[in-house]
């Protein structure tokens, strides 16, 4: 076991920890500080929303935690492991095994059926066919789409597609599910239903959810809301909703 891991083994119930996280972009040569030093901790089983105005750095912050972007400074630790020390291959495996993604635009593979989309990650993980099928059918039942397994995403509504995306994100049982504005393309009823379903899954499975959102429906259903403003967390506006 390496020193980093040993030192951080105490953070067992902390799913993700960021320390002094910074990200500076260069837009046409002009430096833009999207994230300006965030210390943040997410513990197991949380259902947390990150809110903030456009350009506040929500997506950049989520990307940094997901290992999709590299920080200019600071570090991200997932279950005791620093992701900044990981090679490209390790990072790829890390995302595959520990993080589930839900995107604003669903981003399902249009040529794969619902079942194939959901089992994609399990195929990458090398899970056997029988188990894949069982897990897909089980999660489809939980997102109430068990009759849609053979359909292509184009034959589903936006809400249904996002539920498939939720199923895809959860089926491999990751430590953390990151959702970047998951309801941005949905109407309010569908958004409410989706969030209710996700919260139910969170309660049932204990899986950790982290959202970025503008949507009040999401905010109302989050157990914890943190505000991001100008690339910094506004601790004064952190709230716990029971």
């Amino acid at each position: 076991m390496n020193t980093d891991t040993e030192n951080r083994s105490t953070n067992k119930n902390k799913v993700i920890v960021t320390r002094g996280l910074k990200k500076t972009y260069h837009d046409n040569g002009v430096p833009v500080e999207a994230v300006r030093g965030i210390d943040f901790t997410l513990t197991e089983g949380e259902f947390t929303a990150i809110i903030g105005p456009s350009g506040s750095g929500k997506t950049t912050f989520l990307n940094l935690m997901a290992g999709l972007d590299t920080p200019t400074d600071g570090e991200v630790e997932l279950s005791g492991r620093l992701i900044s020390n990981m090679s490209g291959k390790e990072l790829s495996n890390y995302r595959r095994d520990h993080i589930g993604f839900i995107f604003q635009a669903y981003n399902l593979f249009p040529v794969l059926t619902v079942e194939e989309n959901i089992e994609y990650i399990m195929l990458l993980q090398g899970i056997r066919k029988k188990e894949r099928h069982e897990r897909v059918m089980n999660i489809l039942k939980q997102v109430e789409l068990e009759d849609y397994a053979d359909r292509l995403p184009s034959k589903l509504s936006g809400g249904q597609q996002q539920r498939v995306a939720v199923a895809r994100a959860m089926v491999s049982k990751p430590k953390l599910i990151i959702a970047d504005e998951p309801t941005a393309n949905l109407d309010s009823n569908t958004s409410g239903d989706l969030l209710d379903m996700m919260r139910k899954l969170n309660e049932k499975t204990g899986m950790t959810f982290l959202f970025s959102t503008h949507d009040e429906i999401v905010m109302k259903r989050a157990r914890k809301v943190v505000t991001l403003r100008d690339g910094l967390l506004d601790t004064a506006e952190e709230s716990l909703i029971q």
Partner: protein
Amino acid sequence: MSLISKLAWRNIFRQKRRTILTILSMTGGFVLSSLAIGWMDGSYGGMILFFTNHRTGQIQVHKDGYLNDPSIYDTIDDYMSVGEQIEATDDVRAWAPRIYTGALLASRVQNSPPGIYANSAAASVVGIDPVMEQRATDFSDQITDGEMLTASPADSSLRATGQILLGRELAITLNVAVGDSLILFSQAADGSGADRRYIVTGIVSTGNTELDRASCYITMADAQLLFALEGRVHELVVMTNSLSDVERVTGEISAMTDPLGLSTAPWKVFAKEFYNGMQADEASLKIMLAIIIAVAALGVLNTILMMVLERRREFGVMKAIGTRPKSIVKMIVLEASIMGLVSVVLGSVISTIGLMILSKHGMILDPPLDYGGFTFREMVASITPGCYWIPAICVMVTASIVSLIPAVKAAHTDAAKSMRKV
């Protein structure tokens, strides 16, 4: 089917119009290459057959060193025995002996006093066995006036008038026609003078003006007697059942004739200029093929680049959820390869139809093509394995290589950036 193969296969049907265009581009490259190869093989095959059947034969046997420095003294002794052994070799269709030497021919001007020979020309005298020559080559088909030499035994007294065939241009120079007589002056292998009167029995038109200006033909028996070469010849020409047998049969005959101090060569060696000319033409054709493939490759590159650009977000998602870059490369190369495979199948069907038409009807050359000293009036294509496997390899390799560039580009998609743009 693996996940990546499944994705690659289904992605092909996403943008049907673009897929069809890409496949058509590759199919076009395949068909053009295939037809060009068939045309080249057919034309050159026809030329080689024409060239070897007409005169040279496909394989020649000489005394060692004769090809580089021909001499009347460098003969094949006991040639009948050598010839019989050659004939016993597998895939040898026929053989024929020949004698070559030089002579001065002189003819009389009409109504000139006896003994006055005003027209004369130097010529190459070829002694042929009329029966064996007809079995081996189509020499007799080249006699345009008169008839072939008869295989009568030579007159040992050499007093009787012999038969001679003249090349068309030589007959014009000597101002003689069928039935006229002329005198042949030369020197025999024993150093004695060799002269004899001949009656022109036929005019030969090989299609090679140079050859017809300097060649005359007498019977083997006459030639052996006149030039004191009894039982000896300078050359054995050999014909095989097929051009594809030539190299192998040459080797087998060589093994037999080498110990006898004889050398055996295929047409590529003794007709070096003709062969080199063909090689040069083949090189031009290869450049043309490379251009055809390059144009098709550019089309493929363009469409695959477009596809990669359109699917950037999807590649970003794939990477985000843990797909390795090499799997993305594999998927795109596989997509291009599948399209390449479809093009090969489609191209093979179209090429077969085109090649069948071109091999049946050919193309009339107007004006005729002069090549290797001969005139060709028609060219036809032939259907060979090369018409399929060469374009198939070119298309598949090109599709894979060309798709590698966009594939690597796709594999390096920045997941965060690509998903930021909706």
